[in-house]
């Protein structure tokens, strides 16, 4: 944007606009701040999905430091004591569970985005149904039979598995560590992912593809099923040598939790890091850990910072931290992002058995060197929960598909129109991968809903007022810089101060 454009736009405002230091930047800066500023081509980018099976208790994961009285009131028998909550840089509203020291450090390093209260409208509290909604990226009322990742890959690699692998696409499109593949990876015809339990022995395990007898299709449903089985039988052997090559070439450079700790997630991420290091082109990795359905005994009776949930969060934190360190040492940090998700959060009220029943929205962690905001959205307001006195739930602020949309658009460089098709409609950005905080609607500057990040811009944020939006400023505000494509209306003698 040119300086005179900004001035012209500014002069159209109703009231005087003052700019501190006149920090309007050259067009190059805006370009460099977009995702294209990172050296990794879209095609080389990797997404790691971490499924926390069972419904993770969000309020004991990211704890509302600013509302501890209400927090203790809701869940006295499982509440984490104030002095044990991990503090984050520049954030007095929330802290982390004491078991997550690794994620605290990652947040302080700017490599963790905590997205608050992620969920969807009309939430289901059934494990299967809600997990299906998250995996398929569908509405509660419109279940679809394909996974969101599966649809993306199906569109990007049409025809799979026919003619795959190819000279250009040698690697599996998606890999799930384990022996099953998730619904998230399900394409229109079949899973777009491949299960790999142990990359060292995979080639030996799957052997060579069977010689198929000449044209002999069976009829009917059985015939279709038999064709499916044949295809599955041939697929794994055709990828085996490339997986072996990557597994042999790749190494883990960072230390992971020792196997004695039985950190299943760390073991899985260790394999992922090794395959990435070995040069596998796979775009999506799916890993998971179970045990989050904590209806009873989620904390120890003598110490609420210990127990089942603390063990899980400790493992999660240690696994992600080791993985991120590994990527850094490999030099692949800027081509990988990861995200956690769980089918739902848990009830804000605890039950009598030191546990929590099924709930609604919960925080999501997005990690990697390419995330730009330590927090997106605000700590849930405990005095504005849904439900009645004994059964309070955290309402959603961010639709989970907003995260998917940012991943597809800004991480994988998908055409926006296509993303909207893959996710069945358009979802506003939450600026996961952009330094720029942008408006998503006209409205007051001080309304969190005006901004892509679900909170007010802070002094370190670049801000874009998008075309067609009119933002009302009723107090003096400070940001790094402003790009004005829409309009700003000042209701009085206020200004926008720029720090750059």
């Amino acid at each position, binding site marked *: 944007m040119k300086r005179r454009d900004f001035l012209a736009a500014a002069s159209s405002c109703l009231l005087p606009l003052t700019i501190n230091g006149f920090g309007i930047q050259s067009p190059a800066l805006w370009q460099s701040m977009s995702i294209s500023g990172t050296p990794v081509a879209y095609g080389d980018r990797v997404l790691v999905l971490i499924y926390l099976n069972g419904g993770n208790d969000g309020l004991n994961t990211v704890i509302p430091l600013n509302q501890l009285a209400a927090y203790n009131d809701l869940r006295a028998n499982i509440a984490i004591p104030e002095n044990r909550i991990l503090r984050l840089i520049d954030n007095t509203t929330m802290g982390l569970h004491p078991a997550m020291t690794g994620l605290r450090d990652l947040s302080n390093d700017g490599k963790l985005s905590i997205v608050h209260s992620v969920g969807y409208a009309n939430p289901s509290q059934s494990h299967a149904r809600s997990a299906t909604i998250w995996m398929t990226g569908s509405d509660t009322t419109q279940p679809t039979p394909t996974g969101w990742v599966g649809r993306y890959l199906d569109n990007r690699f049409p025809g799979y598995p026919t003619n795959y692998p190819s000279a250009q696409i040698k690697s599996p499109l998606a890999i799930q560590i384990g022996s099953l593949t998730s619904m998230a990876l399900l394409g229109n015809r*079949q899973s777009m992912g491949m299960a790999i339990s142990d990359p060292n022995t995979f080639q030996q*395990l799957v052997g060579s593809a*069977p010689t198929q007898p*000449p044209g002999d299709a069976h009829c*009917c449903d059985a015939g279709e099923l038999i064709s499916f089985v044949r295809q599955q039988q041939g697929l794994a052997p055709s990828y085996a040598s490339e997986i072996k090559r990557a597994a042999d070439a790749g190494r883990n450079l960072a230390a992971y939790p020792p196997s004695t700790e039985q950190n299943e997630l760390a073991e899985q991420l260790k394999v992922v890091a090794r395959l990435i290091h070995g040069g596998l082109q796979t775009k999506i990795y799916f890993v998971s850990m179970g045990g989050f359905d904590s*209806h009873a005994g989620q904390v120890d009776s003598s110490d609420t910072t210990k127990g089942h949930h603390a063990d899980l969060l400790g493992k999660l934190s240690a696994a992600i931290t080791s993985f991120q360190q590994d990527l850094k040492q490999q030099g692949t940090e800027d081509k990988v992002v990861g995200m956690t998700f769980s089918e739902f959060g848990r009830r804000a*009220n605890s*039950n*009598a058995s030191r*546990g929590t029943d099924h709930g609604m929205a919960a925080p999501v962690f997005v990690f990697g060197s390419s995330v730009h905001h330590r927090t997106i959205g605000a700590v849930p307001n405990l005095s504005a929960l849904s439900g009645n006195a004994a059964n309070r739930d955290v309402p959603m602020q961010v639709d989970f598909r907003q995260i998917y949309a940012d991943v597809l658009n800004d991480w994988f460089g998908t055409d926006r129109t296509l993303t909207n098709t893959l996710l069945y409609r358009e979802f506003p950005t939450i600026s996961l991968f952009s330094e720029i905080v942008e408006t998503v609607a006209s409205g007051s500057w001080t309304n969190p809903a005006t901004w892509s990040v679900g909170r007010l811009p802070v002094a370190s944020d670049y801000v874009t007022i998008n075309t067609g939006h009119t933002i009302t400023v009723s107090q003096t505000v400070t940001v790094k810089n402003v790009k004005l494509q829409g309009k700003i209306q000042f209701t009085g003698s206020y200004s926008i101060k720029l720090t750059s």
Partner: protein
Amino acid sequence: MSILDTYTQPLTAQTAAHLLRRATVGPTQREIAVFTGLSATQAVRQLSDSSESLLSPAVAIDSSLSTTVGQPFLTRPYSDTSNDLYLTSVKYWWLALMTTQKTPVNLLDKLTLFWQNHFVVTSDVVSDHRFINRYLLLLRNNALGSFETLLTEISKDPAMLCYLNGNENEKGRPNENYARELQEIYTVGVTDTDGTENYSEDDVKAAARVLTGWAYTNYETAGTTSIDPAFDISKHDATDKAFSSNYNNTVISSRPGTPNSFATTGEAELGALVTMLLKHASTPRFICRKLYRWYVNPTITPAIETDIIGPLATFFASPENNYAIRPVLEKLLTSQAFFSNDTIGTIIKSPIELVLGALRFFEQPVPDMVTDTNAFRNYFTYAYDAMRSMEFEVLNQPGEFGYEPYYQTGYSRTWLTSVTVAERNKFTDTLVERSVGVKPGFSLGIDLLSWVRTLQSNFDSMSVMPAITCEQVLASFTENLFAVNLSQSQRDFLIDTIMMKNAPRSSWITEWNAFRSASNDAGKRTLVMGRLESLMKYLLRMAEYQVY
């Protein structure tokens, strides 16, 4: 005429085998022969009549501090040191019931497996072997009986009270875990076919309150011998529980039982809850749909919903049937839909059908648990581990919804991934290689040479009887092996490419006769065995073998 009408043609080997593959973990050749010629009604009645067998309890499959190998243990005082061993013994005992079929072959064990995957309890969570044993017996004893009884009993079963936290459910701040699954996965289901919600979140909360106060006793408590459930009135919420319009606004009030005791108060409210759940129009449909997917076809089209699920559900819940399970299952298994060509071969075998099915089909005798315990242990350790590698861990589903391939999009296709396909091949290869020893003189697997020798009359006398042909060998190996028929081009391929490796078919005659003339000659034997092994390994790796 309806596709739910009885199938009236006498069973052929193919349809008899189809029935047995679906109603059991897999048939033997002898059982297929016995059932061939029966009517569907006779066959299914026989399968359910045979189901009333008395069971000998499990015995220890190894020695522990308190028991020696082969001794019963279920009535012994609980001890942590022996528990793991006993738990494994119970699991293997259950697998043995499915595999042995001591009484004439029956449908009870496969149906018990169905209920175990419906009312899931896992031994990872509930590890007291007595709880698991009691739970399995409850399922088995009621599998064919009244669904009302089964539902009532499972709701206060100690293992279930442990698995879904009924034990922790008390007034004031109830634990909703069981109350939700009771509606979502045991009875009404989340939504009806038209997408209407079958129950509300408030119904979950109300049902939880009805069930407050139930508890298990003596879970993993050293020295104890009883595990009966208990009802603690002081933890019971005695206020009214109002349900939504989904349940006709039913109100369940605290009611004294007859006789008026604490326990019967709990029973009375549970009874009222079960009655309410069974009155919900979605309950019989939900159960019938699940039975259809398990026994007939995972795909339910709108036509199937109308023509089968609807009428079957109406019959299930009708006053004259009153939720009896056996008549519903018999109706389904004798229906024209069940025997249709659109049904045969439409499910991918679960690991249990692949593994135990193969052990039965190839007549691998189950060693006696009491008198041949070490061999018994080796036999089922192998089967258990093989199934686990294929993502079927007995009594350890990944969650309360059961094994994914019974509910996830794709259904039975979900069994197959790069890893599990390979594990399936590994298992069937092992059967051909006979590399797993059970006891001296008994390795698991198929004795191909003996098999083919039985095809050859006058083995030693080539002048009297010409050699059996490749075609005869293939015909014998594939008899009742697959649910679908092989085409002629497949048969030619199997002989010329797989068995003969492009040598002329006449070479087989020469080689076989050479072996007949010198059956102790290792070289001649190896040549013949190589061909047979190559053929059988390929057959068992074929996609056709994975479906049933």
